[in-house]
């Protein structure tokens, strides 16, 4: 088990943790860009999804968006973001990765938010209108809180996908934890490849668990203990990246 001894040595060596190419900085880059991309994608995807879900328009569009999104491999999105970024004069590294991550996060967030709003019990919405609530009040006080578990799940699902795909940013000359994998491959250094794989896997699982926890904490008090969409609630549409 020479190999695993070398892996342990890699982790034990303090020099591998610090500096620009150290584990700490690579993790920070990875988390930072993922969070930034998610923030931008949320701002683009969620408001129109809320509006369309509220008005009930655009159902076919919502379904198609996620299906098309699923068919385009995340690897292809990253690769295609490169010429786009260069055409826009944004160059290599950060921008193509950012563009790819935003493009990747949009479909699941849009569709799942839309579905979440649509699935709110029409009887409740009707009752709210009957009480004289305006359309805006219905959306902000009734539909959004009731759909919040689904919307938060959508954010989690997209975030896991974004963290996973940020790894591929190393192929367009960006940093992040993918550097270990891509550099390891090109240098034939399996220890580095393995270390990168473990770190990315841990980060993805941590993202999933952390956002799952946030999700449970953020559910409105009135909904706790009730499974809003029934016991067989399906996970929002998502894919591995």
């Amino acid at each position, binding site marked *: 088990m020479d190999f695993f001894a070398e892996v342990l040595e890699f982790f034990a060596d303090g020099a591998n943790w610090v500096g620009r190419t150290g584990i700490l900085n690579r993790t920070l880059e990875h988390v930072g860009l993922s969070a930034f991309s998610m923030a931008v994608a949320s701002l683009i995807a969620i408001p129109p999804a809320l509006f369309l879900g509220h008005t009930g328009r655009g159902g076919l569009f919502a379904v198609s968006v996620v299906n098309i999104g699923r068919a385009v*491999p995340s690897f292809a999105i990253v690769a295609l973001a490169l010429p786009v970024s260069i055409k826009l004069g944004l160059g290599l590294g950060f921008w193509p990765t950012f563009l790819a991550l935003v493009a990747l996060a949009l479909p699941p967030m849009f569709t799942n938010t839309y579905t979440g709003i649509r699935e709110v019990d029409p009887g409740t919405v009707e009752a709210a209108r009957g009480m004289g609530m305006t359309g805006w009040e219905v959306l902000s006080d009734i539909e959004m809180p009731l759909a919040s578990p689904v919307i938060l799940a959508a954010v989690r699902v997209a975030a896991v996908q974004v963290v996973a795909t940020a790894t591929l940013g190393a192929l367009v000359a960006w940093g992040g934890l993918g550097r270990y994998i891509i550099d390891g491959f090109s240098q034939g250094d399996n220890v580095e490849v393995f270390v990168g794989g473990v770190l990315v896997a841990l980060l993805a699982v941590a993202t999933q668990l952390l956002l799952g926890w946030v999700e449970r904490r953020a559910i409105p008090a009135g909904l706790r203990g009730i499974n809003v969409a029934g016991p067989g609630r399906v996970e929002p549409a998502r894919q591995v990246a």
Partner: protein
Amino acid sequence: MILAQLEGQPLVRWDWVADHLDDIWAATKEHLVLTGIALGVGLILSLALSLLAIRYRRTYTPITWITGILYTIPSLALFSILVPITGLSVLTAEIGLVGYTLLILIRNIVAGIDGVDPAIKEAAIGMGYTRRRMLLQIEVPLALPVIIAGVRIASVTTIGLVTVAALIGKGGLGFFILQGLRRFFTTEIVVGAVMSVALAVAIDVLLVLAQQALTPWVRAKATV
């Protein structure tokens, strides 16, 4: 300098495509084979695990928990963890690809079989069906639309993931995407991406047709 090279070129150079039809066809075949093996093995494993979960309910939670964690691990990370153990091989690619089909398939198989109307099962028992005959002749056929919905998601997902396996040298059409990135040649990136999407759509259409032929009593529904 390299960037200038990218700026000057058209999105797709059709002469390159015309010169490389053989390579594209070979990569498409490799892509299909990798996808087919993953789906076949994944389906067999999922059926076995689903039957276990249905017979012994308590195993369902741990099964979905473990396959769920597997599903969360990014494909490139999983390949990277496997490479030191199983090398740059088809085996490495397939372990990952099969792993990612499990969660989707098991969920849909169990949900499909659970969804069979209890009255129908009761009628079957009343008619003297054994457990095995009921499973094969009643439950599985009635669950087929939900099972095929799972196979559709799994196949689209797998076709996408095969492209990532290009990084470990077994990527079918992903090879072109990787080559295009390395040489700053957009034609190859577009060919890899478009062909892979086309493959996903084609397989999806075939699966919808298969479902309509196998279960003429239901209409295929769009899955989200």
